Structure formats: C-alpha cells, structure tokens
C-alpha cells in the first residue's frame, strides 16, 4: 500500500514512532495513593456503620418524647410544682401579709 506523503501523515508517523517517555510506567506516587484512599474513606464512612444512624434517630426521638411526658406530668402535678416545694404564690402571700402589717398604725396592731 502506498504511504501517504502529506506533511501531516509523515509527522504523525514520526510522532507515533517516538520512544515512550521515561516515567511512563512509574510506580503510583505515594501522594496520589493517599489522596485516592482519603477520598474513598470520605465517601465510604457513612456506609460503614449503617445501623448507627437509625439507632441515633430513634434514641433522639425517644428522648424528646420522654422530655415532653416529664414536662407534662410536672406541670399537672397536684401541688403545681416540679420540685415538690410549696408554690411560689404562697411565699408572696406571706411577704404581702408582712408588708400590710408593717403599714398598719402601731396603735391598731394586735
């Protein structure tokens, strides 16, 4: 078969015959290896422990429900107090009584 003689054809033949570059089959650089492994770890991490995410979601929901129930019970307890001490309104009444008595003229005091 007759070879094409256009300069481009001659150029392409010459280029194709060029010896390969020296580092063409070099080993994988350490930096490249680490970058690839890091990228893979980053992508794989959520799938490594697939049971953890639903468990955390359920625990969070249970904790929220428990907090609501405790809050509700505390609000509706018989003494209307979370801590079990007397309600704050009783203390105010005592204070108010002291003030009222202090304002009463001394000759009317019991």
């Amino acid at each position, binding site marked *: 078969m007759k070879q094409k003689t256009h300069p*481009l054809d*001659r150029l392409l033949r010459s*280029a194709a*015959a060029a010896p390969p570059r020296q580092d063409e089959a070099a080993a994988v650089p350490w*930096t490249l290896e680490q970058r690839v492994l890091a990228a893979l770890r980053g992508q794989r991490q959520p799938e490594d422990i697939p049971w953890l995410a639903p468990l955390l979601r359920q625990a969070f929901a249970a904790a929220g429900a428990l907090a609501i129930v405790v809050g509700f019970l505390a609000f509706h307890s018989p003494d209307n107090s979370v801590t079990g001490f007397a309600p704050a309104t009783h203390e105010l009444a005592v204070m108010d009584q002291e003030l009222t008595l202090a304002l009463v003229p001394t000759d009317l005091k019991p």
Partner: protein
Amino acid sequence: MTDDELNVPECLARVRRGDEDAVRAMMQHLHPLVMKIIRSHRPRRLEEEDLAQMIYTKIFTRVDQYEGLMPFEHWVSRVAVNTCLSALRAESIRPEWRMADLGEEEEAVVANLASTAGELDASVQAGSRELVEKLLQTLKPEDRLVVQSLHMEGRSVAEVQAITGWSAALVKVRAFRARLKMRKSLERLMKERTT
C-alpha cells in the same frame, strides 16, 4: 504480591469489601494504563495527578457497576477516557499555535517537513510528538481522542469503538474532520516559517 501475580477477580472482590491493601494493589496494576490514557488526553491546565485521582476515585467508587462482561482493564480504559473527555470539554479555550510558540525541536520538525518530502529522521521523533500534541490541543476533545487513538497509539477503529461506544462511521468522520483541521494548522505553521 507482585503485579504480575495479581489475581484481578480476587482483588476486585477485596476492593468491593473496602480492603485498602487491595485498592493499593489494584492501583499499582492499573497505573501504567491509566497514565498512558491521561498523558494522551490530559487538558493543558489540569495536573496529571489531579486527573489520576479523579479517575481512580471514580473507578473504585463505581466498581460495583462493573459486571464482568469485558476485561476489567477495558472498563477502566472507558472510565479513564470518559473522565478525560469531560475534563477536556470543560477547557473551552483551544489554542491556535504560531511559530513563536514552538520550541527548538518542534521548529526543527516543521523545517524538516517543509524542506523534504521523505520520512522524518529518527532524531526528531520526540519533537514530532511534541508538535503533534500541540496540534491535538487545537481540536475538539472527541476529535482529539480519535486521532490520538488511531494514529499515535495505533488502535483500530473497532478498538476506538469499544473505548468510546461510538459507531464506526462516527469514528471515521471524526478522524477525517480532525485530520483536515490538523493539516490546515500545520500548513499555516509551514507557511509562516517560509515568510
């Protein structure tokens, strides 16, 4: 384990289980192939290592998509070529080379082509390759891939079809169009040299 002894199916199974030693061994096995593709189809502004990372990450994250219908190396070639094509498409500016942009070796090749009608001397082969790489940069990514594969790597049309998934007619049309554009670029350089 040396690369020659690498049992690809067994290594692939370990890669799928997330074994990092298997990933390392597979990278070592694939590196010459991947680097050859990168050096043929790398955009000018992207570092080899960055492109290699993109390719390897894609290979190992999508390894479950490999069904074993073709050799693993063919599948890897396809992933690598498609990644390079995407990167080349992102590089919207294609240069138009002038004689002033060429190095000494490339200038010598142009002079040689203009002065003789025979085959180029073996001493200028490296310069020829540099010049061809510059001319390839002026082409569309798909055209560049076809010329590189057919003329530089000596692949057949069928092999290019296997890598790209294009029809034989499309490969031939792209090759014809690309050669035409390269001819014009080269002729302009040769004309510029004589004026």
